[in-house]
């Protein structure tokens, strides 16, 4: 810690942890020099375009490629029949199921991949798609998940008929995938039977899509002479992709290089393995030329990785003072036609069992049933840790509904139920150990900042005048940083992450990571961690990610795991280097290592002013003058397996006004307090919170992938799918408290997903609050003007006086 002005100056020059350092990534992006997958232009590249099904459920009677093949410039048309000899017409999913790479005799969702046309340019490929003739026999489509397990429901997965298991435990119906239960069922039932008060509410987290501005895509390049495969890919997990590609293709991992270049946003959309990648790779191997496949926006919204589609029933049991005694949850999860959700393998409902939230709930039971429907596969974590958005939504709606029933203020009921600061580490009824938190302090700080009492008074006065004003509260706890390998793996690979640091003779350094930024600013923030740990200026620390041939193996970036896991690996790797540096410094200064103190950027001999060696000097010595028996060089690698998840939290309040006659909702104020533990770069944290809140606003107020009764997806372009513009997006106010994680080397917890997870229920609680004096208990998202107007109309409030 700096004590003099000179020390402070030395520390500030490092631009380490806590510094609002400007981003290292920006110069290339603002000059149009980013390098995204579609910018990769290899000589001789062919373009792939996908033939897709117009039907949600149909048998394929025939596919005729002749006309397409006759088009000049078309090089190949690949179908399931072509992939069959390679056994690549089906592929394993991350969830223990299989998925058709190209439809095999039958299509199970609209826009499903039937064939890929490979041609000299994208225009010819698109023309070729139009010339592929496919004859279908339409089948009845199953759209409503509530009807999936009816006796007469259409069988979607004929390949699974007769199997009582689809990779995630026992199933009881042809369209059933799994049942997952956690908690004490008998104990919970007993609490409900004897409860003074109970509330029960059905609610839907509708099907939405992460919709990053850049769609998914790849450039696969197989070098026949060398036998090497290089794939540039929009992947949030390049190393895992390499393992999967190796398993599927039979090529050794050493012959495969996956490169995630700059990624134009991910938000969970770019975790999985999609058919387009697989077919492009096969096409490149077959044709010996680079093959590029880039999704259109319609393909993206229609096929690659929806999120949510959780149909939940929540119940709370409480005493009449509002102290919660039990939570019971039943979920029907619509997973689409293949179980291809992207969760740690052992968790069919992700980390949904965080649904006891920030509250000390002694007893709980959760049951989740997954079902197949004729919709695209997916179920990804859209800017959240696995199924945590759904979990937080459930508990935050339920506690409001309980408050309403008991006539207790919505802030007050939270204060009565919070896990108290002295209860950490806290073991939840559903099996998690929360690492640290101070929930009452966070909520009280926000209540004071927004003058909560004043807002309630204003609301009361407005209600007397017939005006609709809502105050939404959300006090969420996330579970991020997956995760301890004893609990989490992807296809058997533990969910550790990694960092390799090399310090050069002149005192600059390069760090290579197993994670991959999609806009989070890793090049900037990881360098800050190393700067503080090693006393080298962050300016001379280069951070590289995303190339499996140079970076150490890591599980990638999603579920807010980069800072909790990759950041921890960085700190530990840097500390290994500092330990070695201490020994070198002791050798140079001819003292014992124990006689040295670390001071910002140097080791000093205790009690002897002026006897010191800077890290820069030590770096030079590491390459020419090390203690006898020590190897030269100054580098380290760490594969960090976290001992626990981290549990960021926050308290949000929004204030909104509803136009009685149009149903339009105007968010007047949104105040977000986040506690992500130690803060590495406050500027980047604030930016992440702005972005997460905006995505929360989008989900709560407008996003929806809907289907008609034949399974036709409706609204799959940006004409209809709601991405807020600068005009609709509210103004954000941010605040923070700091409660470090006790088990993370830096005390950091991760932040980018909190605002999405906490923001959605805050908005929906706000809209519901506006109606809560009118006998309305719950209105589902999205709260479009039309949806709100329907409520107004039912209540007769839309009639002008």
């Amino acid at each position: 810690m700096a004590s003099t002005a000179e020390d402070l100056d030395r520390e500030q020059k490092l631009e380490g942890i806590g510094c609002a350092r400007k981003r290292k990534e920006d110069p290339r992006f603002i000059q149009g020099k980013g390098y995204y997958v579609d910018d990769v232009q290899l000589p001789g590249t062919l373009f792939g375009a996908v033939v897709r099904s117009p039907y949600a459920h149909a048998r394929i009677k025939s596919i005729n490629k002749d006309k397409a093949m006759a088009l000049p410039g078309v090089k190949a048309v690949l179908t399931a029949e072509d992939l069959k000899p390679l056994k690549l017409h089906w592929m394993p999913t991350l969830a223990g199921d299989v998925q058709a790479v190209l439809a095999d005799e039958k299509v199970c969702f609209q826009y499903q991949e039937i064939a890929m046309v490979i041609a000299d340019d994208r225009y010819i490929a698109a023309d070729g798609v139009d010339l592929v003739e496919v004859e279908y026999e339409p089948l009845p489509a199953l759209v409503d998940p509530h009807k999936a397990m009816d006796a007469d429901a259409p069988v979607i997965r004929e390949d699974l008929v007769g199997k009582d298991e689809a990779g995630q435990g026992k199933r009881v119906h042809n369209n059933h995938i799994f049942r997952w239960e956690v908690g004490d069922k008998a104990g919970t039932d007993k609490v409900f039977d004897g409860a003074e008060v109970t509330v029960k509410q059905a609610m839907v987290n509708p099907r939405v899509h992460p919709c990053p501005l850049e769609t998914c895509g790849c450039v696969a390049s197989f070098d026949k002479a060398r036998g090497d495969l290089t794939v540039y890919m929009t992947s949030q997990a390049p190393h895992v992709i390499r393992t999967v590609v190796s398993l599927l293709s039979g090529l050794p991992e050493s012959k495969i290089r996956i490169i995630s270049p700059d990624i134009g946003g991910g938000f969970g959309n770019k975790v999985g393995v999609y058919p387009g990648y697989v077919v492009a790779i096969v096409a490149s191997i077959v044709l010996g030329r680079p093959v590029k496949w880039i999704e259109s926006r319609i393909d993206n919204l229609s096929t690659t990785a929806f999120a949510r589609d959780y149909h939940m029933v929540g119940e709370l049991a409480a005493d009449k003072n509002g102290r919660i005694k039990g939570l019971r949850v039943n979920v029907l999860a619509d997973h689409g036609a293949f179980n291809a959700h992207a969760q740690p393998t052992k968790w069919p409902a992700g980390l949904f069992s965080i649904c006891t939230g920030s509250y000390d709930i002694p007893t709980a039971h959760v049951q989740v049933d997954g079902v197949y429907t004729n919709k695209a596969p997916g179920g990804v974590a859209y800017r959240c840790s696995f199924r945590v958005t759904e979990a937080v939504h459930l508990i935050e709606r339920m506690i409001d509904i309980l408050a309403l029933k008991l006539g207790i203020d919505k802030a007050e009921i939270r204060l009565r139920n919070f896990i108290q600061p002295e209860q950490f580490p806290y073991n939840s009824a559903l099996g998690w150990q929360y690492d640290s938190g101070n929930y009452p302090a966070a909520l009280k700080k926000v209540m004071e900042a927004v003058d909560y009492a004043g807002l309630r008074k204003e609301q009361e006065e407005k209600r007397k005048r017939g005006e609709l004003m809502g105050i939404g509260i959300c006090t969420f706890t996330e579970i991020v940083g997956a995760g301890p390998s004893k609990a989490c793996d992807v296809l058997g690979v533990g969910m550790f992450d990694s960092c390799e640091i090399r310090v050069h003779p002149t005192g600059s350094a390069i760090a290579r990571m197993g994670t991959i930024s999609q806009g989070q600013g890793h090049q900037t923030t990881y360098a800050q961690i190393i700067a503080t740990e090693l006393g080298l200026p962050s300016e001379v620390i280069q951070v590289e990610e995303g190339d499996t041939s140079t970076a150490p193996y890591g599980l990638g970036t999603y579920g807010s795991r980069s800072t909790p896991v990759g950041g921890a690996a960085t700190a530990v790797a840097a500390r290994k280097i500092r330990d070695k540096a201490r020994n070198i410094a002791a050798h140079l200064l001819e003292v014992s290592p124990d006689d040295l103190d670390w001071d910002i950027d140097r080791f000093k001999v205790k009690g002897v002013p002026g006897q010191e060696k800077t890290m820069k000097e030590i770096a030079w010595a590491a390459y020419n003058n090390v203690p006898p028996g020590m190897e030269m060089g100054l580098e380290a690698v760490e594969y960090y397996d976290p001992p626990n998840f981290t549990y960021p939290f926050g308290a949000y309040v929004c204030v909104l006004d509803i136009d009685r006659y149009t149903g339009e909702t105007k968010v007047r104020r949104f105040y977000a307090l986040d506690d992500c533990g130690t803060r590495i770069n406050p500027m980047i944290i604030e930016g992440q919170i702005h972005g997460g809140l905006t995505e929360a606003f989008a989900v709560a107020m407008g996003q929806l992938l809907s289907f008609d009764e034949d399974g036709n997806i409706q609204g799959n372009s940006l004409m209809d799918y709601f991405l807020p513009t600068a005009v609709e997006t509210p103004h954000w106010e941010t605040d923070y408290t700091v409660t470090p994680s006790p088990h993370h080397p830096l005390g950091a917890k991760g932040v980018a997903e909190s605002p999405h997870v906490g923001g959605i229920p805050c908005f929906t609680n706000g809209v519901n609050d506006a109606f809560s004096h009118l006998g309305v208990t719950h209105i589902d998202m999205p709260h479009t003007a039309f949806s709100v107007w329907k409520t107004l109309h039912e209540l007769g409030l839309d009639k002008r006086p």
Partner: protein
Amino acid sequence: MAKQHITFTLNGEKIEILVEPRELLIHTLREKLHQTGSHIGCETSHCGACTVDLNGKSVKSCTVLTVQAEGGTVTTVEGLATNGQLHPLQEGFMQEHGLQCGYCTPGMLMRAYRFLQENPNPSEEEIRWGMSGNLCRCTGYQNIVKAVQYAAKKLQAAGGA
């Protein structure tokens, strides 16, 4: 289809090129002229990632045919800096943390470049409306607004764009 001979000025340089009549300007820029700064996000004119300046107007180059640029002047993000000096907007986006993944940024910069010539001294609301044809999924726009304000101030001080 018979190719058309097209001539236009791109970032101050004269371009002559043969294109199919149906070829979109964004594809010509990115794939034939290797100016990959402008991006494709939606193909339907909604997202604005492909925004470039054509004859003094912001256009979405994913829905402009290259033949429509005949004889015209096109400016893309690659032409924004002059004599090695960043444009105040580029500085503003960096100083105010107006970008994250960077995918929308070239389109945002090009729209703001034109917008500040249309309205050199805009209010926050005018900026939000003026930039509303460009979508960003990362920033929540607040810092983009600040970046445009930063540039407006700097351009005003320098005596206009």
